[in-house]
């Protein structure tokens, strides 16, 4: 850490560096877990980095189903080698982790923080972000992704489960005390274990947007109550048992009006979106940071009890480093008076998914390409709109199939893996509503009857090897 506080880095830098350093190895996978995303930012800022110099990463975007529907309601699906998978929670929480899992051959990198894939997350808000190649953290992140497929409170569509299984093939998965996820229990339960840093803390500092309700403050203070608690926030919160400091965005310096070209100058973050829990010890402090807001739904409840899916990563700070960080927080949270209204960057995450269709994928049967829709249990029929035409489909075993004979959107996708777009959009009709449904050209094909998963994995690997010019000219074909 620098003497004047944490460094400022672009969100994409650790991803960019990983692609540059290890991108020649196969298989290449990038898995993004996020609550929210902006299709335009994904297309212009993230995908180009993962497709540089022919090193195409198979990219999965797992996002909260309600946000996917909201974001795609404008008809904007990102173009490129990307599959989007909406994630639903059975008990009403939201899918809220912000985690990136990168894999090239046997190299793995995990990025964790508070950033969604939105303009705010990529720099307009105050966000914390970190990456790690540590095997323990990578194993824990792989374990978390596996748990997503297995957890009874989380609903993933089958193509996402297939793709995750393939992305993690050959990678060790094991939980770690350093990475907390709400799939394994609530945060206070995790803190009761050894090494969490809370037991030896003399003070607790909490940084979070002010999403917690007045009635909930007592509950979310409870795990930290025996220590002096300071809350760094951005809304009109108060409680007798904690000190509150309020976010005051730094004032931007005057622009130099240099029209020669873009002058690189740091933007002052306009809104608070960081979520961090610093347990200040005498000689050493522990910092937990990631996606979990200081709310009941994020910290105290598991997805089976109506909570969110959240991730926090632990790191140790020396006494000097903790002092520097606290000094920096004092500078950013300089307002002594509570703001009259909340200045939070986004509304509090709420479950808002609708409709019965999870997602669609393109399949190639002997009769040609078909649209296969994955549907929630107990649904008998669904109505969809494709290129303005309504079509009613019967559902059998949570699937509805439609042969693709015409339709501009689907025929474009039917170019398959050789096409430019790997995700398109149709609409489910529910009453008077049109609900967007993502249709993917799947990253991993479903094994045909009798074919083993390993067989299709080998086919895919050869396919990937032949596509990449670097691989052909001497790169390694490596998988562990």
């Amino acid at each position, binding site marked *: 850490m620098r003497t004047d506080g944490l460094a400022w880095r672009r969100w994409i830098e650790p991803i960019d560096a990983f692609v540059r350093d290890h991108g020649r190895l196969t298989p290449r996978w990038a898995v993004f877990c996020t609550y929210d995303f902006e299709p335009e930012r994904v297309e212009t800022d993230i995908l180009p980095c993962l497709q540089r110099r022919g090193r195409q990463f198979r990219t999965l975007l797992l996002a909260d189903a309600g946000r996917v529907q909201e974001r795609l309601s404008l008809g904007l699906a990102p173009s490129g080698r990307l599959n989007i998978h909406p994630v639903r929670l059975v008990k009403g929480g939201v899918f809220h982790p912000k985690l990136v899992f990168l894999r090239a051959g046997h190299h793995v990198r995990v990025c964790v923080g508070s950033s969604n894939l939105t303009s705010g997350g990529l720099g307009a808000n105050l966000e914390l972000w970190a990456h790690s190649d540590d095997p323990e*953290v990578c194993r824990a992140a792989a374990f978390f992704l596996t748990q997503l497929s297995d957890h009874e409170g989380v609903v993933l569509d089958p193509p996402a489960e297939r793709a995750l299984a393939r992305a993690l093939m050959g990678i060790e998965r094991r939980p770690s005390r350093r990475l907390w996820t709400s799939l394994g229990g609530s945060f206070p339960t995790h803190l009761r274990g050894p090494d969490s840093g809370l037991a030896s803390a003399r003070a607790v500092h909490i940084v979070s947007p002010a999403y917690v309700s007045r009635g909930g403050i007592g509950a979310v203070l409870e795990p930290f109550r025996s220590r002096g608690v300071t809350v760094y926030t951005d809304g009109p919160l108060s409680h007798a048992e904690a000190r509150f400091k309020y976010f005051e965005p730094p004032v931007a310096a005057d622009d130099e009006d240099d029209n020669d070209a873009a002058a690189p100058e740091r933007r002052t973050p*306009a809104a608070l979106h960081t979520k961090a829990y610093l347990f200040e010890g005498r000689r050493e402090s522990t910092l937990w940071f990631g996606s979990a807001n200081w709310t009941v739904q994020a910290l105290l409840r598991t997805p089976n009890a109506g909570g969110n899916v959240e991730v926090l990563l632990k790191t140790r700070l020396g006494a000097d480093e903790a002092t520097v960080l606290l000094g920096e927080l004092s500078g950013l949270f300089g307002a002594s008076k509570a703001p009259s209204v909340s200045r939070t960057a986004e509304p509090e995450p709420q479950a808002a998914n609708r409709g019965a269709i999870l997602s669609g994928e393109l399949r190639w049967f002997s009769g040609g390409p078909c649209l296969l829709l994955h549907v929630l249990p107990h649904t008998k029929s669904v109505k969809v709109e494709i290129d303005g035409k309504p079509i009613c489909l019967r559902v059998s075993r949570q699937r509805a199939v439609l042969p693709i004979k015409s339709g501009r959107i689907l025929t474009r996708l039917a170019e398959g893996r050789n096409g430019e777009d790997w995700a398109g959009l149709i609409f489910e009709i529910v009453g008077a509503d049109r609900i967007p449904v993502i249709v993917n050209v799947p990253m991993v094909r479903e094994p045909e009857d009798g074919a083993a998963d390993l067989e299709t994995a080998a086919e895919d690997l050869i396919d990937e090897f032949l596509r990449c010019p670097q691989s052909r000219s001497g790169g390694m074909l490596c998988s562990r």
Partner: protein
Amino acid sequence: MEAIVPCWVEADPAREIALDALGLATQADRIADQLLPGLSVLTRRARYLSFLSWAVSRVPRSSDRMKRIHRYEAELALHEAQFHEDAENRCRGVVGIRRARSYIRDKRHASPARPEELFKSTALGAYQSLLRTIGLLSPGSIPAVTPQGELVAAAFGRSARGPRACLSQISDEERRLLRRALGFDRRLAGSTGPTRRRDTYAEMLRRFRGRELTPEVVLPRYATRPGPGSRVPFLLHSAYVWELLSLGLNLAFVCLLEELAMRPMANRLATALRSRPTPPPLGLLAVDGHSARHVVALVRRGLALRPRDLGLEEGAVALAESLFEKRPMEFLEGLVRRHESVKGPEAWICRQGASGRLRRLAVPKKELPTKAPLHAYRLQAFWELAQDLGLWR
């Protein structure tokens, strides 16, 4: 256990000044990528390619390498400012020229001790993607010249005395090498990038010889759909249709930005929808009494050319269609929703209750637009580059 050090997330400086309110530039960029791959609106001077190859080849690998390259760039800008002191517009596209001119004026021609501190943005930043694409710099984060780049650097070194060169005085040898690198040498077979650039050049030469290439001049010539098999005319026709739509949508948005209310604009649009206004010529459109009529005419003309069949962005087309299929108020609400979605927390305006009033939010560092512009499709940059290479005489 590896120590994990978190960082604050820094905004991408290039995003700061993006004034694309409705996210319509992405589609325009996609078309431009196919028309003129590798080029950007900043790559306007051919001699920067040879100069930067020379600068990179001259500076040894060290920690202050970028700083030393920047120093060469600043010396070139100072030389240009001095050389063209009497005719300021004679040498265009020089990075940092404004700062260099004011320095020369203020300091009465004294040389600065650290020229690289004159301005922050570097020419290498603007040109390095193109330099890599055409094979003068090798891939990788640290700039290094390729054997082909060495040839170009040597040609620059022979014709200029160090960094004190003029971008307009490009030698024949540099021209020849750069034409080959960019794919304009017809004797050489090229891969996709050079072939696309050459096809676009051939089309431009055939139809616009001697004229300055601007979207206002070029795009209206592609108002009718070309026959099958003609890739460049097809792309330019797509660009024409896209400009009709995006100009209409952007003009409607600029009107909202000025008035901060949707109701008056909705009423004017309703009146315009009852008539058959003619579209204005493509170009920069300011808000005036005819804006609503212009919006209706542009969008109607764009939709008549079947944008969905051209593969243009679905969301924008659906938004444009809503002007005719729904009430104008719903169209304007869709416009604001799209702006909010594209800009996220950086949105300039948002809806205020159900009254149709709008509220101004954060304002970016640069001024908000008051006019609806055309997208450039890199045509002007290409024209200037072609002029430098002697391709446009």
